[in-house]
């Protein structure tokens, strides 16, 4: 652990950060999808889905995950709640 980490009272080892950063960067490398492009994809997906159903745009999350040999694009798209929908319809 570095001097600074100890000074800040952080209990995280730099090796742990290294591993986490590596895993994240490799998920993007392997899928050939940069974080910037993923963000653009997310915006487009939001636009398309919004045409059909009212969604909570700010709560949408789309991320790349990896388990064993499989890479996955996981999207969590919460619908806008029913009360608001009724409100906007009326």
């Amino acid at each position, binding site marked *: 652990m570095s001097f600074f980490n100890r000074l800040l009272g952080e209990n995280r080892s730099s*090796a742990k950060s290294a591993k986490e*950063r*590596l895993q994240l960067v490799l998920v993007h490398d392997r899928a050939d999808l940069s974080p910037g492009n993923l963000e653009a994809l997310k915006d487009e997906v939001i636009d398309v889905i919004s045409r059909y159903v009212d969604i909570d745009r700010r709560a949408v999350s789309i991320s790349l995950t990896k388990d064993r040999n499989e890479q996955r694009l996981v999207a969590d798209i919460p619908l806008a709640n029913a009360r608001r929908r009724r409100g906007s319809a009326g």
Partner: protein
Amino acid sequence: MTAKIATITSGKGGVGKTTATANIGVALASMGKRVVCIDADIGLRNLDVVMGLENRIVYDLVDVVEGRCKLRQALIKDKRLNGLYLIPAAQTRDKTAVSPQDMIKLADDLRSEFDWVIVDSPAGIERGFRNAIAPADVVLVVTNPEVSSVRDADRIIGLIEAEEKGPGKLIVNRIKPEMVKRGDMLDTPDILDVLAIELLGIIPEDEHVIVASNQGLPVAMDPKSRAGRAFMNTARRLDGEDVPFESLEGADGFFGRLSRLVKPGGEG
């Protein structure tokens, strides 16, 4: 004899490809094998100085490929170690002087006379890398326990698989056990976890490596060196022996965890 061709590569520069090539070559020769090391880094010749054979070069790889000499004439024999030879890279040409097909033909011509052909790949993922892996039966990927180096190793592993050269085997070079112990360096199980390939060797950081390269005596020739012993073990595993990853390669305990990790898959 039917040589196996092992190409040593990494993607990133400066992680120890040339050092690994020289030392695995030395280690295999000291086991009684007939070995030729080929420097495929055309234009940036270095394997000759690491092996201490720089004063004996007459012909090089490009001379062989372009027919200016016989293959036999470009083989520099190491006088200190029976059965060890070097084919140096050309220094004044570039990677385009050799094609992947040239490398395959060269390796095939060497097969009948050697047990092992060890090819030192240049850094990068372009022509020189493709030349170096073209003849490979097995690809050894060298990485350091650093984010940048492991990332490049992952890219290389992808390219090796795309060329149908198998997943490759990993050599983790320049591990500092004391940094690993205090949580400031990626340890080998972490790297294996991320890269998901077979482990062939763990080489500890060792000042002997620099002293050895100052003198042109690969560190595997020095039994007092920890890195030298680790390279010996790596070479034995490459040759099919079942050598456990044990404490002599670093701090105890830490590597105990590792041997459990490595065992179930089986080696070789």
